């Protein structure tokens, strides 16, 4: 396999493999790539959610009224359960309170609200200049401190992924720059503007997990990116990193699909890429790692694509976490007159929001504003005609029509056995369905339901164990009490025997005394 990969990367693009299904979509990326990346002005208030990753909510470690410096820890994830959150700029903590998160649930969550003081003053920074002499676990610890999560969209904690990688033997690090979803261009602009930073991050990651080599995968239509990366790789002192152009087929940027294209191997169902000796990171994550290790800058800001025909000047911005989405849109010229829908993420996997007051989080890669004529009017759903198009395009090689029927009828175990957990929610099946069945929505619902059931089952098992332990303890205590009672009774009985003996002795003595004291009969 290794030789296979080596050969294909040497001959860039000639020995690529295929993944099943997928779609060729119109890119719509040019519109947001015309203007260079810019940093919007500091907002008047930053609302930083304490849960920005896949996992538990972290606890705030600042008080209202407290002054924080840029990069100060404000949410302590303790590295095991959660992911650290840092102050995006210097200022005062106005409140630690519940705010609406830009989440499809529309639920509120705990946030730290910071009023910036405009100084943007950093805390003391200690870059790890000697990172090459540090052990992998120390680098992973530093990555964990910096609160880095996968910036490709899944926001899985990077240090946890690295732990998996360190436990397995990783031979190849893959940097994923195949940004396949239409409209999104934040990774493309990052690779064009910061190729050296990405390569530096790749070197740190490769050193931390002990991989032998690194491959950067980009799409074949990213000409400017290719030039920028090739120039950076050719620079003296740069590490030998292979650049591979993969064909632009959606969802090529999915971790499993990209691995299949590069190596021809499939990541096992329910497994991780580390099971086959690979570690896959997004290019933006690599840049964040470089920031964290070489400059001691925790993850405070990210590239966000603000695009769509509903925005006057589509472009990429470098936004601080916690910036209201409305500020980004205003910076990009505001809404066009016929703007109709605000979507977070791309048109395939994103979700729409009803308000632009929500903050940018670590997961926000794209803010897409669509116009009236771009929104497909909701077509009435029709019964499935079993055309099989969905199965033909499914990149995970599932049978969407069967899964749909199982979820609809509540056959959860059957749906799980049919591979529902392997669905990557890419929406290809949805896109091609002639009956307009919202298949991806069904699968998201089904996956959530499976997770909830699993959680319930674990909770029930736990409660059963505690109940049985308590019953056993009560039974043991009762037995012990009964044993103590029996002992006491025995002691009492023994006591009674001794008392009888004492009484008998006293009786004997009394009789003897009375015999002695009897008057002698007179002579």
């Amino acid at each position: 396999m290794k030789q296979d990969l080596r050969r294909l990367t040497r001959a860039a693009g000639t020995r690529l493999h295929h993944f099943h299904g997928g779609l060729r979509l119109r890119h719509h990326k040019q519109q947001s790539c015309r203007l260079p990346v810019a940093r919007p002005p500091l907002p008047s208030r930053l609302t930083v959610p304490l849960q920005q990753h896949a996992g538990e909510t972290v606890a705030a470690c600042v008080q209202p009224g407290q002054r924080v410096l840029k990069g100060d820890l404000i949410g302590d994830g303790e590295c095991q359960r959660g992911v650290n959150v840092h102050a995006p700029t210097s200022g005062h903590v106005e409140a630690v309170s519940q705010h609406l998160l830009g989440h499809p649930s529309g639920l509120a969550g705990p946030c730290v609200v910071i009023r910036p003081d405009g100084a943007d003053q950093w805390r003391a920074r200690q870059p790890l200049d000697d990172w090459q002499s540090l052990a992998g676990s120390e680098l992973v610890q530093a990555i964990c401190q910096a609160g880095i999560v996968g910036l490709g969209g899944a926001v899985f904690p990077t240090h946890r992924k690295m732990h998996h990688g360190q436990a397995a033997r990783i031979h190849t690090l893959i940097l994923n720059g195949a940004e396949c979803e239409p409209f999104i261009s934040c990774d493309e602009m990052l690779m064009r503007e910061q190729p050296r930073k990405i390569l530096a991050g790749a070197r740190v990651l490769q050193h931390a997990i002990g991989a032998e080599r690194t491959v950067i995968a980009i799409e074949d239509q990213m000409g400017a990116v290719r030039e920028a990366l090739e120039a950076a790789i050719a620079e003296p002192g740069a590490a030998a990193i292979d650049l591979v152009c993969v064909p632009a087929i959606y969802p090529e940027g999915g971790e499993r699909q990209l691995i299949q294209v590069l190596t021809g191997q499939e990541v096992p169902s329910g497994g991780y890429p580390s099971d086959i000796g690979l570690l896959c990171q997004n290019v933006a994550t690599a840049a964040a790692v470089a920031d964290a290790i070489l400059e001691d800058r925790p993850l405070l800001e990210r590239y966000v694509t603000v695009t769509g025909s509903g925005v006057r000047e589509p472009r990429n911005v470098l936004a601080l976490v916690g910036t209201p989405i409305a500020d980004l849109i205003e910076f990009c010229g505001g809404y066009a007159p016929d703007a109709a829908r605000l979507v977070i993420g791309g048109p395939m996997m994103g979700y729409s929001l009803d308000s632009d007051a929500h903050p940018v989080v670590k997961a926000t890669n794209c803010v897409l504003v669509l116009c009236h004529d771009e929104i497909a009017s909701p077509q009435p759903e029709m019964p499935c005609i079993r055309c099989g198009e969905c199965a033909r395009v499914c990149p995970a090689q599932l049978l969407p029509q069967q899964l749909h029927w199982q979820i609809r009828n509540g056959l959860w175990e059957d749906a799980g056995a049919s591979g529902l957990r392997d669905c990557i929610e890419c929406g290809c099946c949805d896109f091609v369905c002639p009956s307009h069945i919202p298949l991806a929505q069904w699968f998201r619902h089904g996956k959530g339901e499976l997770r909830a059931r699993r959680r319930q089952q674990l909770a029930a098992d736990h409660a059963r164990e505690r109940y049985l332990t308590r019953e056993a303890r009560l039974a043991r205590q009762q037995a012990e009490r009964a044993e103590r009672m029996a002992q006491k009774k025995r002691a009492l009985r023994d006591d009674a025997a001794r008392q009888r003996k004492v009484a008998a002795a006293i009786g004997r003595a009394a009789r003897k005394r009375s015999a002695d004291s009897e008057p002698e009969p007179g002579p």
Partner: protein
Amino acid sequence: MLIPILTLMSLGLLFGLGLGWASVRFRQQGDPVIDRIDALLPQTQCGQCGYPGCRPYAEAIASGEADINQCPPGGEAGVRALADLLGREPKPLNPEHGEASLPSVAVIDEAICIGCTLCIQACPVDAIVGAPKQMHTVIAAECTGCDLCLPPCPVDCIEMVPHRPGATDWHWPRPMTAHAGGRP
């Protein structure tokens, strides 16, 4: 004549010995049906079914003493699962045993608690910590929401708070669709 008789007798002896050995070697510990019923019960240990816990109720179902529709926390889905397992017809929950309610967690008002330990003794899963004349509190993650700590409390300082889904345990709802679906 003698040879077939001897052959059959020795065969019978051989098989008898084999079966006898197997019955000792592969003896089932406990009743597997009870375990499988118990696995389907929600383990709230609330006693609404009329038995002092989920396992006693499972034993009663297995012996035919109790019906399968006496568990309100399990809801209709629980009744269906039991009916599937036991090959019986599903039936609606028996209202005598209460109605299905949303999962909830007990919360002790610590300012009012007098530290009498009665709730600690009532909790079937040891989810309350405290000591005599000291404040008590509920370990929310361990609480099954069984309500059993409410009646013994002499100062009524325990309240059942319904569990609200947060952003971490939220999941996408069922899509709203016009047609009823069915087998494609």
